[in-house]
């Protein structure tokens, strides 16, 4: 159960890093182009009710993680089935992440190096971090400040290359398209944070979960908007020609004649965020398996999950275009894990809470009845 190893600030950093881990693929959108920042704002607003659901669940079951809550709400059998679904989701998400980072490194830097070797190193390092405990993931997440500094630096350093007229006209896309892209933004990456609920049992029960999520969401939205504006302002309409627009935008930036090639900072940034996200997914899957097998230590499953991730990674897609085409479908396929299951768990938890409070009050009234006394 609870070891209270993660502080409130560390949890905020984990959430921030987890969300920005998708920055490599979610830095622009070809459907809404310069209006992407509006979609990011709408996605953040749409995520607020989900934060309230998370907060209520944690308040109803303090000190319990996602899987323990599922068991408490639905009973052992259904709870274990839902846990198994979340394990599959976490493994699939981690394998997608590994694949995209392996492709990213191959496309931008090391064309001759097999993707498998990059992925193997990433997975081994992630497995090592996870086996050292969730507090180790939290300690890694303290490099949030570095991510923010790098993004702000590239934004201000790129000022002379920016053409802010690229942001115009505002609301050029129709509203249904903006809503569609916002909904995708809600699922990828915001909704994926349901897996961070597996870490909740490691923070103090009296911490305000709503506040933690809200602060991280505000920071994340600001950073995403800064990145979206930077990319469109520097690259203009060609932003959507690139698979990794952040990398391309920053590669243009230079300070005077001698400071250039800042794109390496973006590489570091994306890899750092991606590693945290990978670790959270790996931790969630290992913890879920230990929950199903009733083992006190999740570490027994970390290596097995790492192997599953690296195998699935090779079966995901043949080329990058196939992956980018898959993003809207990936968002649809994630709706059950990220929206439906948390809502169902919340409704179930509320019913259980009402029932138990009803039983308690009826017991008290029976004890206080005149016949008894």
């Amino acid at each position, binding site marked *: 159960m609870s070891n209270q190893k993660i502080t409130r600030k560390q949890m905020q950093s984990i959430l921030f890093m987890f969300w920005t881990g998708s920055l490599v693929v979610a830095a622009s959108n070809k459907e809404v182009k310069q209006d992407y920042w509006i979609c990011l704002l709408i996605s953040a607003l749409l995520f607020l009710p989900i934060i309230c659901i998370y907060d209520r669940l944690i308040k109803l079951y303090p000190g319990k993680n996602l899987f323990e809550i599922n068991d408490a709400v639905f009973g052992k059998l259904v709870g274990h089935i839902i846990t198994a679904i979340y394990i599959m989701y976490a493994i699939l998400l981690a394998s997608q992440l590994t694949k995209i980072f392996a492709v990213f490194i191959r496309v931008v830097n090391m064309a001759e190096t097999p993707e498998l070797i990059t992925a193997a190193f990433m997975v*081994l390092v992630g497995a090592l971090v996870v086996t050292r405990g969730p507090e180790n993931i939290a300690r890694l997440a303290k490099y949030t400040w570095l991510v923010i500094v790098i993004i702000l630096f590239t934004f201000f350093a790129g000022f002379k290359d920016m053409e802010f007229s690229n942001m115009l006209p505002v609301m050029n896309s129709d509203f249904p398209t903006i809503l569609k892209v916002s909904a995708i933004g809600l699922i990828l990456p915001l909704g994926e944070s349901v897996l961070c609920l597996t870490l909740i049992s490691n923070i103090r029960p009296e911490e305000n979960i709503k506040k933690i999520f809200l602060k991280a969401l505000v920071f994340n939205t600001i950073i995403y908007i800064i990145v979206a504006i930077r990319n469109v302002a520097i690259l203009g309409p060609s932003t959507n020609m690139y698979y990794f627009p952040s990398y391309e935008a920053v590669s243009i930036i230079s300070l005077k004649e001698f400071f250039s090639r800042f794109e390496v900072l973006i590489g570091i940034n994306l890899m750092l965020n991606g590693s945290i996200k990978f670790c959270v997914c790996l931790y969630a899957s290992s913890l879920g398996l230990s929950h199903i*097998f009733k*083992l006190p230590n999740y570490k027994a499953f970390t290596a097995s999950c790492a*192997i599953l991730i*690296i195998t699935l990674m090779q079966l995901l897609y*043949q080329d990058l275009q196939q992956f980018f085409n*898959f993003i809207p*479908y990936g968002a*649809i396929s994630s709706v059950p894990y990220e929206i439906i299951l948390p809502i169902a768990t919340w409704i179930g938890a509320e019913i259980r809470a009402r029932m138990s409070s009803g039983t308690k009050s009826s017991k008290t009234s029976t004890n206080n009845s005149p016949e008894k006394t």
Partner: protein
Amino acid sequence: MDNYLIIGAFYVVLIFTDLIPAIREKKTKGLFFSIPVYLITLIVNIMIVMGVQFPAITTVIQHAIQSMLKIP
């Protein structure tokens, strides 16, 4: 050839750091899951390296969603 070596090294590292200690400590419950996973994934990985074509998971999911929601 490169991929054979990478997969081999990856499995060797994990077998020595995870599987063998688990067998020594007789963590039977964990091994019920770990040993089949190691074996199945090893076979799949060898097949991938040998060039056997598997359907892409994303394509399978995409087709399933298209047929469920009747998206052309």
